[in-house]
């Protein structure tokens, strides 16, 4: 866990003091809304449908128990007792008052957190693999690099007014759990022929109204070149990116319009220019950061209690089958705590739940927690002997749902229940799908299936990379939902294809049910997941189950 140095602390406190003064001047009428809006957005404060919303950065999704408890404290003191974990590993508070926000930011600073650059046309929170430092398949922990990028990008004078927002994701593993191919810059750690670790640099990915899979700008970049190379990319984008049209301003369009070769040529030229200016200070600093991320002191003990509980408690067995992942230490497991209880709002945790997770991290998990882009919470380092106790504690507060990677583990953006940009609701659709498949008791038979729901074309719910994606739109004043099929957010990233005409609000859940029941009929066997069946058979049979009336009409 990175600990602030004196500079970091002074910077965040002075920024908070500035914002406190800006809020005072807005309230007393010295600043107009036009003057104030860019200032509040730079500090993560939005105005949504019903209230303000404060988006707090959780850098690369990493927390300790003190930070998690403080998030719970903010929820109780200044919000309505809960927070919403987002698809960019942040947390959002939906009900703060403008006059309370400076106090909230000060309370965050007390635990080395902030809301800087969680909005605006800047480099946003750097996201990372939520299993970083723990997973069995990792080359190196990507978080030191993510922290270096965070420090470099925070208040970077050249990059405060980019053509549009800019998102960077880092994965330390060839298995991509950070959706690197859907980011402005994606960094995926790989090894070269000599076995040295470096990064595959992906550029120009993004979802939104023009979804694009990122392209490989450099197949292998030595670690030492990472910061100047990223700076070169953002420099090129800052000059070349379009500022005449908001919808064509992201780097994906810059890459698409200019071509990858041209971008590479410009980036290489800029890189050659600035590389000598990086005297090695960044590497010294990186080495210092890396010390903050030393692996915990793993213990060694018998795992018999885990095996015994699995044998005698079917509910625990089911939970451990779905919610555990392989840890690099065979005596340990990575626990994914589902924030997707059937019928609840995906990603919403109450203050009580946050405190329980903080306690569990402190007692059993080497004091580490992560937020995943799939809106769940991770205990990355848990000795297997402690799993039964953790399961029991989670169960007491409604956090033991055994559904990770299954149909009810749905990503959903806040949609029109909160968001001012949304064109339809997302949350109730997610709630109803989860509830329906829980009633059908088919969830575990269906197996791995990622449903992702966005309430508008901006695609915060990542619907394009859902195996089943749902996009909520406003069609002539009525909510309408389009289905996309075959999306994939992993290292084999793919954009889903639109299945056909959209469905009304009361038709979308039955449509998903037809689709999934159809898949059960079509799959080769129980081992073939939805996405594989889709790839094997193509869209046609899935469209046939979605639109039976169209098939009848064509046959008539």
């Amino acid at each position, binding site marked *: 866990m990175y600990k602030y140095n004196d500079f970091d602390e002074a910077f965040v406190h002075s920024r908070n003091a500035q914002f406190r003064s800006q809020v005072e001047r807005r309230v007393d009428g010295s600043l107009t809304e036009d003057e104030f809006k860019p200032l509040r957005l730079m500090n993560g404060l939005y105005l949504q449908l*019903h209230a*303000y919303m404060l988006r707090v950065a959780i850098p690369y999704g990493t927390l300790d128990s003190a930070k998690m408890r403080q998030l719970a404290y903010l929820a109780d003191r200044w919000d309505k007792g809960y927070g919403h974990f987002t698809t960019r590993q942040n947390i959002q508070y939906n009900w703060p008052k*403008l006059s309370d926000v400076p106090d909230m930011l000060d309370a965050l600073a007390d635990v080395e957190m902030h809301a800087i650059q969680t909005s605006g046309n800047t480099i946003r929170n750097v996201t990372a693999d939520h299993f970083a430092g723990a997973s069995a398949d990792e080359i190196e922990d990507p978080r030191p690099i993510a922290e270096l990028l965070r420090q470099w990008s925070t208040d970077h004078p050249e990059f405060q007014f980019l053509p549009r927002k800019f998102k960077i994701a880092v994965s330390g593993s060839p298995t991509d759990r950070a959706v690197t191919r859907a980011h402005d810059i994606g960094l995926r750690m790989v090894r070269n022929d000599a076995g040295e670790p470096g990064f595959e640099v992906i550029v120009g990915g993004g979802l939104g109204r023009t979804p694009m899979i990122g392209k490989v700008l450099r197949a292998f970049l030595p670690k030492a070149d990472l910061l100047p190379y990223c700076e070169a990319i953002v420099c090129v984008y800052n000059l070349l990116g379009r500022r005449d049209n908001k919808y064509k301003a992201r780097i994906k369009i810059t890459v698409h319009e200019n071509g990858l070769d041209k971008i590479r040529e410009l980036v290489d030229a800029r890189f050659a220019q600035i590389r000598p200016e990086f005297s090695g200070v960044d590497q010294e600093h990186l080495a210092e950061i890396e010390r903050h991320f030393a692996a915990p002191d793993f213990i060694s003990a018998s795992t018999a209690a885990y095996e015994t509980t699995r044998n005698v408690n079917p509910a625990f067995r089911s939970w451990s089958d779905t919610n555990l992942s392989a840890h690099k230490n065979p005596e340990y497991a990575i626990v994914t705590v589902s924030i997707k209880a059937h019928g609840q*709002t995906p990603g919403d945790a109450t203050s009580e739940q946050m405190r329980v997770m903080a306690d569990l991290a402190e007692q059993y998990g080497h004091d580490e927690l992560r937020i995943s882009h799939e809106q769940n919470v991770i205990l990355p380092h848990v000795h297997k002997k402690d799993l039964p106790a953790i399961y029991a504690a989670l169960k007491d507060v409604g956090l033991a749902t055994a559904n990770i990677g299954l149909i009810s583990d749905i990503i959903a953006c806040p949609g029109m229940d909160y968001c001012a940009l949304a064109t339809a609701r997302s949350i109730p659709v997610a709630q109803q799908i989860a509830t329906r498949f829980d009633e059908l008791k088919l969830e575990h038979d269906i197996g791995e299936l990622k449903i992702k729901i966005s309430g508008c074309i901006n695609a915060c719910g990542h619907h394009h990379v859902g195996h089943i994606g749902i996009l909520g739109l406003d069609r002539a004043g009525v909510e309408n939902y389009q289905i996309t099929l075959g999306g994939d957010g992993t290292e084999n990233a793919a954009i889903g294809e639109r299945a056909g005409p959209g469905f009304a609000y009361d038709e979308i859940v039955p449509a998903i049910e037809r689709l999934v029941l159809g898949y059960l009929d079509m799959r080769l066997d129980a081992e073939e997941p939805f996405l594989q069946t889709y790839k094997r058979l193509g869209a046609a049979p899935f469209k046939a189950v979605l639109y039976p009336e169209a098939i009848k009409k064509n046959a008539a």
Partner: protein
Amino acid sequence: MSQNFAPKIVTANHLVEGDVIYLTADGDWSRNHRDAEFITDETHAVIRLGFAEAQQERVVGAYLADAKLGPDGPAPIHFREDFRSRGPSNYRHGKQSELTNV
């Protein structure tokens, strides 16, 4: 009523609370949609919007929204305005927790 003018109300968010508010005929603001001034004249709508926008120290983001006359007063037409007048559908955290007749 002006020809081809769809009736409107003026709505905004409260500067400090962030809550959805509606401009009333007497120039005050209400948290309840049915208290809004029902505007049927385009010129009057422009004047009332200007009046709202001038209250920088009190409101944010004033705009005109389509409305219809219901039994209790002006009611929203578009579902977005309907949600704004009630609150989110996943919790009773918005106006629905405070208003009696919704």
